[in-house]
């Protein structure tokens, strides 16, 4: 059986491991160069989470934690395709998301931001892409929140996304941002991405994703590593 390896991580698209403006990177990222590893079966396999692993309601963050009322905030739809570098859809892959609520507060026990929790909003969801690589979430637009990186530092509104793709070589954790956010040029996490690739993290407002009378729509396609042309040597 021939299994094609994946193209390498394109380091012109990804942020550097150490980016001093983002202070947590300074002592937490390795200083020695990464050692190239030739992909073997260990890298060309990965956990399989198909449609049976998620419930349909898991992708609707406006309802999945509803206790007594709808969560507060601006309802949004986030939808798009997971594709690879070669333009091929990535079907049946798990997408997990997490985010702050409309007030900019995570449900996390360590989030000390003095903004209200929303008893009807949990802020985590998941879905599995369809045969065309499509995914869709309903949620509440997350709020900006302050953090301790520097004086008067605020994270722009964002949604965290975690994807596997076909194998662990295509693993990706990233963040989605919203168009026109004035905090984007001030955010060292966003700005750590090479300039040419930065706008790939900004979702596009899209009227065709917007649901009339219900929720604003944002389109966000995610590009994972694609297969290289040369099969792995036996």
């Amino acid at each position, binding site marked *: 059986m021939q299994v094609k390896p994946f193209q390498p991580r394109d380091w012109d698209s990804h942020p550097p491991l150490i980016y001093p403006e*983002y202070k947590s990177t*300074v*002592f937490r*990222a390795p200083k020695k160069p990464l*050692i190239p590893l030739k992909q073997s079966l260990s890298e060309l396999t990965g956990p399989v989470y198909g449609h049976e692993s998620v419930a349909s309601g898991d992708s609707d963050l406006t309802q999945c934690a509803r206790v007594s009322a709808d969560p507060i905030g601006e309802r949004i739809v986030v939808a798009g395709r997971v*594709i690879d570098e070669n333009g091929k859809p990535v079907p049946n892959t798990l997408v997990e998301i*997490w985010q702050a609520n409309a007030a900019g507060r995570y449900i996390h026990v360590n989030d000390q931001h003095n903004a209200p929790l929303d008893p009807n909003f949990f802020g985590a969801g998941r879905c599995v892409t369809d045969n065309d690589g499509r995914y869709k979430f309903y949620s509440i637009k997350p709020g900006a929140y302050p953090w301790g990186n520097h004086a008067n530092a605020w994270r722009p509104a964002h949604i965290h996304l975690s994807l596997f793709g076909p194998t662990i070589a295509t693993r990706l954790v990233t963040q989605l941002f919203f168009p026109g956010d004035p905090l984007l040029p001030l955010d060292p996490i966003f700005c750590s991405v090479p300039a040419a690739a930065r706008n790939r993290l900004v979702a596009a407002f899209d009227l065709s994703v917007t649901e009339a009378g219900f929720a604003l729509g944002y389109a966000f396609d995610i590009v994972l590593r694609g297969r290289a042309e040369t099969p792995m040597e036996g």
Partner: protein
Amino acid sequence: MSGEPITLGQTPSQTAGPFFHSALLPDRGGYAYTGLAQSEVADAAVVGQQMSFEGTIVDGQGLPMPDALVELWQADAMGRYAHPADPRSSNAAFKGFGRAATDALGHFKFQTIKPGAIGDGQAPHLTLILFMRGGQNHLFTRAYFADETAANAQDPVLASVPADRRATLIASRTETGYVFNIRAQGDGETVFFDV
């Protein structure tokens, strides 16, 4: 299909931040949301040598990281991966994937089985993926086993690592399993791979 191959730019990686537990490991946080992966990778019913697999993650100042996530991917006791690319996987009723978050002391712990050799000349190993606040890109590393001396000596990945750094990839034996401490930066920095 004809013409130029399409090449789309990879979506950039971003840090998982410190607040991933609700989505990626909700069981540990006591959240009312069922996680898809846990730190218990194999229960007692899974065929194989049961082992705990644990360690502490420290940063470049030697401080424990209380907010990191470790993902584990491994073959079963017969060296088979539960994935379609492994032609033997139809016999493996073992998923082989787990997640563990570090605690306040930077400690993580899995309960699993020792993987078998996959049969391509590599020694038995676990694949580990690290995520953390300040981790702009996830870090790939591997854990090999101290009691597999002969197999480790033949392993091509270990051979590709400078000899004086190989020890960072070897888990040592404990009473219940193995310990694998991770140093993200500094003296004794763990080897991380560009996969």
